């Protein structure tokens, strides 16, 4: 079989394979391919943004689905200073001072501090609807 393949062709195939390997290594293509095959879009979003860390995409996704929050007035605070993800979920940020719902992610607390005795005094007007670690979904008492 090898006799039928010209020496020149083997050289070209060898060069093509080496260049392919360089490209695949540089872009991490085999791992990325495998990752897309085994994890769906939502899982990968969660891996990238975290569930209740960094931007906390997973928390948004969970509470919006569970409490059917689409088209509701929501304000979002990320206490760790990461960007908020209302755009990814099509949430229109509330212009109201006292919106119906509030998503507070990565709340930074000390000792026995709770969100109700935190720097955010307006949280006293809210009750906790759902909490996961330091991420909260709050609903207005009004």
């Amino acid at each position, binding site marked *: 079989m090898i006799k039928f393949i010209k020496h020149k062709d083997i050289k070209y195939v060898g*060069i*093509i394979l080496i*260049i*392919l390997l*360089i*490209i*695949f290594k*540089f*872009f*991490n*293509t085999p*791992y*990325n*391919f495998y*990752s*897309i*095959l085994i994890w769906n*879009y939502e899982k*990968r*979003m969660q891996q*990238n*943004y975290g569930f209740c860390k960094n931007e906390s995409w997973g928390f948004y996704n969970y509470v919006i689905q569970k409490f059917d929050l689409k088209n509701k007035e929501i304000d979002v605070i990320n206490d760790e200073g990461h*960007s*908020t*993800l209302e*755009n*990814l979920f*099509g949430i229109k940020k509330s212009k109201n001072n006292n919106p119906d719902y509030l998503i507070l992610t990565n709340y930074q607390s000390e000792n026995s501090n709770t969100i109700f005795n935190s720097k955010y005094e307006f949280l006293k007007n809210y009750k906790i609807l759902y909490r996961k670690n330091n991420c909260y979904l709050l609903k207005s008492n009004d």
Partner: protein
Amino acid sequence: MIEIANIILQIFIFFIIFSFPLNKRILNNIFYFKNVSLGFFDSHAINIIFFSYFSLFTSLLSIDQKLFFKVYFCISLIFVLLNINFYYQKIKKENFVIFFFFFVIIFSIFIFIAQNLRLEWDGHVWISKALIFFNNEQISNLNETIHSEYPHLGTYLWAFFWNNSFLKLEYFGRFYYVYLYVVSIFLILEILNVKNNFIKIILIIFCILLTFEPYYFAGYQEYLIFSTLIIASRYIYIYNLSERKNIKLIFLIFLILYINCWFKNEGKLYFILFSIVTIYMSNIQKYKKLFFLFLVFFFIFLQSVLQNYLINASLLGQEALQINILKYINDIEFLFLKLFKIILNMIVVYIKHPLWIVIFLSIFIQIFLLKTTNLNTKYFLICLTLNLLSIIGVYASFDNIDLMLKLTLDRVLFQTSGFYLVIFFSVLNNKKFLIKRL
């Protein structure tokens, strides 16, 4: 598996859409150069620019994106099918290896983006504009987004391919940026006088190694300007090799540079600088030069008027444009301190983006070792000098210079770096240089 299949399908959609309305044959008939033959990547790149203008008009007229896609795609598909034999022969006979690696590189970057989905900080600002178009809202609603004075075309294209993907996933919209980037890198390699495809591929990989920044694909618009400037530089290079009288070519360069104004505000500065240098160095009559100069400022004015009228947002009057360098002109010590900070940060950026080191090294080789400065070297050196001086001028005028340097200088310098890649290839093309023997 369905996502992978859709990613491959998206590559073919891009291929079909950007094969219309020009192909190699039509393009060569329009421009007719004696020494240069325009190829597949030329027609592809110019078609992308053409499509961007078409998108600009549809965005300004608030035409439904899905309708626009269906019509444009059908026409493009018919065009490709009518020319299928031409494409088949071209791929089969001339550059199968190049096309194969073009596909592999695009696929690898698409897969990379699909795995690293995260939008970075500014991406969350830009996506709010893209969502206006994704939801088919009126263009005037851009006024409600943060930084409404930022141009919208990049986000329109993002929303367009996001909206018209089968899975309707956000990252499909950003594939447009990747496609444009890869086409521009393959295009600039056409400058090289080397026939060996493997050397071309190795140089393409070298360029990608130097210029691939995943962070800027995470919602930033920098690659749009970076790639468009590379495309412009290819035709400026051809133009400088010719007698510099080809009005059609000047007009093409002009159109490519102008689209930058609709991607980012910095694009206006690059459009003005590079267009004026092109006009100044051309061999056309004075009245034609004056006409083109008038066009430059007319189109800048037109963009500002359209932004004001349709979106009610324009850069004019915004705080961002307040060049208050005159305020500090008396305080020489303070100005020197600012200048020192800017230059120091520039050096840091040059190290961060090694393409700049390659560019400066190429300039050094061209001037001091090869001792040959042709018209192209002169043109790009003038542009580089003006570009860097304008950047220094703008940053020196900022009150919060430390923050601005830290946050934006690397992006500003990155987006223009591709424009000077020509200098590197110009050195490789030099008769005294090694690669000529390959």
